[in-house]
């Protein structure tokens, strides 16, 4: 296997596994930047995967080849609505955000499987008939060397994910809205004093995280899993959370980390075919993202500073 062939095998697969993580991690960045810890990313992905698959199965005749795109849109909307539960508990009722997130994870899986059994009479759905397919990007795919690696046989969603990361960076760092959102996560009382509605900003941030988590889950389901069961989303949400932290709560950092984790996942899938990696036990590649996150947190890979008010419920007039 030549080096070029190697890249052609690895990069599209890495992009393919990264996309859901990027979407979800961006949602996590929004939520945590506003000061709300979101352990529930996993649950939001479960909800997104469920809605994406069910919508796809139900409406594939109606929307034809547009079905997967409309499915992920539906998943975004439901994800956003679902996240309101986390927002109400952790913002309005001052619930412990970690506990509320854990409950979100339970609830999503419970609802998903319950409704699956209700509607399909079995523990898993059928395979979707209208998933995302790989495409060659016109013109770009014909570029020598780069074309075959980056633009042939890839999923458009991977590029949407990368685009979203830049949009998220712009929104968070270049707009007044982003400034307010970050202020609320760093020092809510100061923000409040300056007339920023802390609760409103946090609600918006959590709802964005729900939409992005739903999107991530739906993209995972419609590119990788292709059906919904209790084992569709196992840990991708937590891996996205790891990407948030590894990327230091920065959208582009989170994207980089998600790309890296996607790369690690792809290696554990296709590693057997790569000469150098064939001898590395798969388990090391599987645990790499998690171990790296612990190392990053411990400060061995540069110090990561969490938003200061992250995880602290804001109670007006309380100091």
């Amino acid at each position, binding site marked *: 296997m030549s080096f070029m062939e190697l890249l052609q095998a690895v990069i599209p697969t890495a992009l393919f596994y990264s996309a859901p993580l990027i979407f979800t991690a961006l949602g996590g960045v929004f939520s945590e930047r506003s000061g709300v*810890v979101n*352990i529930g990313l996993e649950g939001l992905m479960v909800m997104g995967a469920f809605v994406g698959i069910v919508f796809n199965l139900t409406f594939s005749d109606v929307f034809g080849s547009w079905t997967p795109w409309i499915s992920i849109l539906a998943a975004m909307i439901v994800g956003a609505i679902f996240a309101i*539960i986390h927002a*109400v*508990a952790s913002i309005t*009722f*001052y*619930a*412990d955000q*970690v*506990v*509320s997130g*854990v*409950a*979100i*994870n*339970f*609830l999503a*899986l*419970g*609802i998903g*499987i*319950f409704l699956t*059994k*209700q509607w399909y009479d079995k523990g898993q759905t059928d395979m979707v008939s209208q998933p995302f397919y790989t495409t060659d990007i016109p013109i770009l795919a014909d570029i020598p060397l780069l074309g075959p690696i980056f633009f042939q046989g890839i999923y458009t969603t991977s590029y949407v994910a990368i685009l979203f990361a830049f949009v998220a960076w712009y929104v968070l760092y270049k707009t007044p809205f982003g400034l307010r959102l970050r202020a609320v996560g760093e020092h809510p009382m100061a923000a409040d004093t300056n007339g920023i509605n802390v609760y409103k900003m946090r609600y918006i941030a959590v709802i964005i995280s729900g939409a992005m988590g739903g999107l991530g889950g739906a993209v995972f389901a419609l590119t990788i899993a292709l059906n919904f069961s*209790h*084992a569709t989303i*196992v*840990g991708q949400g*937590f891996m996205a*959370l*790891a990407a948030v*932290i590894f990327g230091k709560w920065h959208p582009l950092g989170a994207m980089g980390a998600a790309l890296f984790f996607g790369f690690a996942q792809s290696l554990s899938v296709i590693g057997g075919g790569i000469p150098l990696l064939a001898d590395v*036990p*798969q*388990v090391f590649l*599987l*645990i790499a993202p*998690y*171990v790296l*996150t*612990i190392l990053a*947190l*411990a*400060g061995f890979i540069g110090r990561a500073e*969490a938003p200061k008010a992250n995880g602290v419920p804001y109670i007006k007039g309380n100091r």
Partner: protein
Amino acid sequence: MMENKWFNILVPVISVFIGLLAGALIMLSFGYNPIQGYMALFKGAFGDLYFFGETIRQTTPYILAGLAIAFAFRAGLFNIGAEGQVIVGWLAAVWIGSTVDAPIYIHLPLALLAAAIAGALWGFIPGLLKAGLGVHEVIVTIMLNYVALYSSNAIIRNVLTENADKTDMIAPTASLASEWLENLTYFSRMHYGIFIALFAAVVMWFMIERTKLGFELKSVGYNKHASKYAGMSVKRNIILAMVISGLFAGLAGSMEGLGTYGNMTVSSGFSNIGFDGIAVALLGANNAFGVVLAAFLFGALKVGALNMPTQAGVPNELVDIIIALIIFFVASSYLIRWIILRFKREGK
């Protein structure tokens, strides 16, 4: 203070009630009869001695996992890693159980000890990182859950077996299985572990309420700075709390390895015992006695739910939804407090 104690009991009770009510509403909205549904659940948990035995079997690891999380909570730590600690405990117990050859009075304690040590080690890492570097234990323990899952799978495949999906059965000398309890309960899988779990609850109560260590842990949980000023070692207490918490969770894993299953299977997902332990600890108000009660409730719900699809046609996942809602309500105790206070005011 009295007011607080009263709330501590009322909040879980009301949460359970609202959770069950929500479950009934869900059943109604899907055209089931909630009374039939809950009857099926009740029968499935207590209908005869077999079901009762199974409920106790399910309760056993829940008690230990709940104690693990409650113990950490008392010291102000959130151990989401109980799941990982359960897995390594399970693996260690089965490892000793299936490879060592010894008489029962050595073999069984050795296997339990191995599980406890494995869990404790898995708790030591986040404890050390928290105490030494101030790293948040929630994230570290979540990450360690996955490390535990994938590593255990690899060990089962490559070390304990030659690429098989499950380990050998443990030797009878390491087993917690009890002919006496099985016969008593029409051959349910109930085993001696329940006594270990109950004993652990007493130990936890004693440690927290009656020892200097418990006092220091609670003190650190309330206020780190004051505890430090009073001359306690906050770091040492954080590490100890995580280690003991991991120890309990490791034992919870051994209940499955030495009691219920007698082996360990390669798994793509979690056992959920550790995660359910979070619900148990929260509902039990992080108190040993409360944990036992909550574990029993969740054990009954989980085992009883298995009877719901056959007898009432209701998918058993309904119970997972109910449990999730109960956690929400316990977590949002502010809401319940607010409602109670409002009712009180209007009543006057």
